[in-house]
């Protein structure tokens, strides 16, 4: 069995949070789908709430404090990402966006990403398509076709086998297949020299 890493990013604010609940259901589904394909996933979950101060500090000082640095390294080294945000004021939450503002602009390039969101009613669901998907397009991520939105009604009695479950499984299958067809993610070293000095001089 090949091993890959899956990073789950949850921008939920409350405790417990429906955003985290959706993130967990997605990661369990991806774990199962990947397992069927012969891929064993190591799952790391990042709660952005715990990094909220660090994210602001990184914006103000230009460098990430230790805990945020570790989270950014985990994201950069991941083979796949699940990103889940609550929809606030017609878009991703500010915290969610701020985190991706401090992620290196190349860190997600070519990486399979599953996007998901939560909101009070299904009327917010297209925010995934008009706000979240373009964000990951900018970052050159490979966002799977199915995005998953969970509204208040999805957490009702028939959740276990309802339409939300169906969408979770479809999206999870798409992400698992993207991971399966790829080599492990290369990790770029920001301190590595990419050109010799002779080449730098010659490029004048």
């Amino acid at each position, binding site marked *: 069995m090949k091993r890959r890493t899956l990073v789950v990013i949850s921008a939920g604010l409350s405790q417990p949070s429906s955003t985290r609940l959706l993130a967990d259901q997605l990661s369990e589904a991806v774990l199962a789908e990947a397992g069927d394909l012969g891929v064993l996933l190591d799952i790391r979950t990042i709660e952005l709430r715990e990094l909220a101060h660090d994210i602001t500090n990184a914006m*103000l*000082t230009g460098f990430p404090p230790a805990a945020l640095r570790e989270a950014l390294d985990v994201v950069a080294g991941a083979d796949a990402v699940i990103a889940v945000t609550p929809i606030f004021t017609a878009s991703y939450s500010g915290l969610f966006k701020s985190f991706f503002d401090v992620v290196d602009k190349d860190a997600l390039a070519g990486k399979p990403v599953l996007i998901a969101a939560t909101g009070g009613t299904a009327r917010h669901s297209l925010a995934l398509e008009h706000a979240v998907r373009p964000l990951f397009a900018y970052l050159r991520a490979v966002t799977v076709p199915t995005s998953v939105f969970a509204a208040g009604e999805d957490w009702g009695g028939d959740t276990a086998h309802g339409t939300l479950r169906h969408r979770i499984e479809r999206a999870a299958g798409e992400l698992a297949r993207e991971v399966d067809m790829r080599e492990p993610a290369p990790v770029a070293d920001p301190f590595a020299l990419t050109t010799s000095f002779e080449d730098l001089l010659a490029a004048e």
Partner: protein
Amino acid sequence: MQFGIFSVGDVTPDPTNGRVPTEHERIKTMVTVAKHAEDVGLDVFATGEHHNEPFVPSSPTTMLGYIAAQTERLLLSTSTTLITTNDPVKIAEDYAMLQHLADGRVDLMLGRGNTGPVYPWFGKDIRAGIPLAIENYALLHRLWREQVVDWEGKFRTPLQSFTSTPRPLDSIPPFVWHGSIRSPEIAEQAAYYGDGFFANHIFWPASHTQRMVALYRERFAHYGHGDPDQAIVGLGGQVFMRKNSQDAVREFRPYFDNAPVYGHGPSLEEFTTETPLTVGSPQQVIDRTLGFREYVGDYQRQLFLVDHAGLPLKVVLEQMDILGGEVVPVLRKEFAARKPSHVPEAPTHTSLLAKARDAKVTA
């Protein structure tokens, strides 16, 4: 080992009373700080170069020339001289002139400058920052070493039969440090020429500085200038001291909380953990500074930032008194005791001249 002060030259309101120095006051303050550096036994004063408010030092050689006239021993340097937006021909001339006036007490640190809008004011583009630094320094390096230069490049008009005047004092170009926070290309540039590498150090975690210095040392050896531990390394540092560390923290906190670079962000405690900033007793500064050596190796120059963030001149001078009186003498002794004999001191005009004469005698 050399110890000194580097000044950014920011005009920042004193957050405790709202007082803002005039540009004139701030410029004179920098001169006072430089002269005081010599008085308290420090070795180096370095001024920043900035072309945007709220900073005053746009003309480093003017300031350093004035300071040179009023000091005897102090080494004058920059932090940094902008190798991207200045014409390398003018850098060659200005610093050679300063070198003559200061009888050789001059070196300089080259940096790119990270303020995007400044570049077009000088006809340049920040996106070409690295290529500008590479090409401009390649020219500067030749102008100080070759009597007549024919040259053509991408970023300025060609030169035909050009001689930069005055020639460097005793035909010894000023020693150059290349400053960078996180561009490996600049560590590589410093290594290629066998020049010094200065890590800003103060705004970033130690792990960054460690990686950059390690890269520079490795490449310095690769280019045949000596062993990795013989490369010439300088570090920034940032301190605020009182006899009792609690007093230091209490007094410095409003300045920290409102400082232009990191203010309104991390707490003082977080920033002192994440970066080399040390706010406490002189002994804490001594211990922390000696610790730098553990991740960069034996190094040659330690500059402290003390003159910033709206601190009143009186407090800055007190800080320098503590540095010169209690901290640096201990650091000199302790660093010297730890440094193996094959690790060189930072080159100065005197040492480079002696080396050139030795080379001549052997040849």
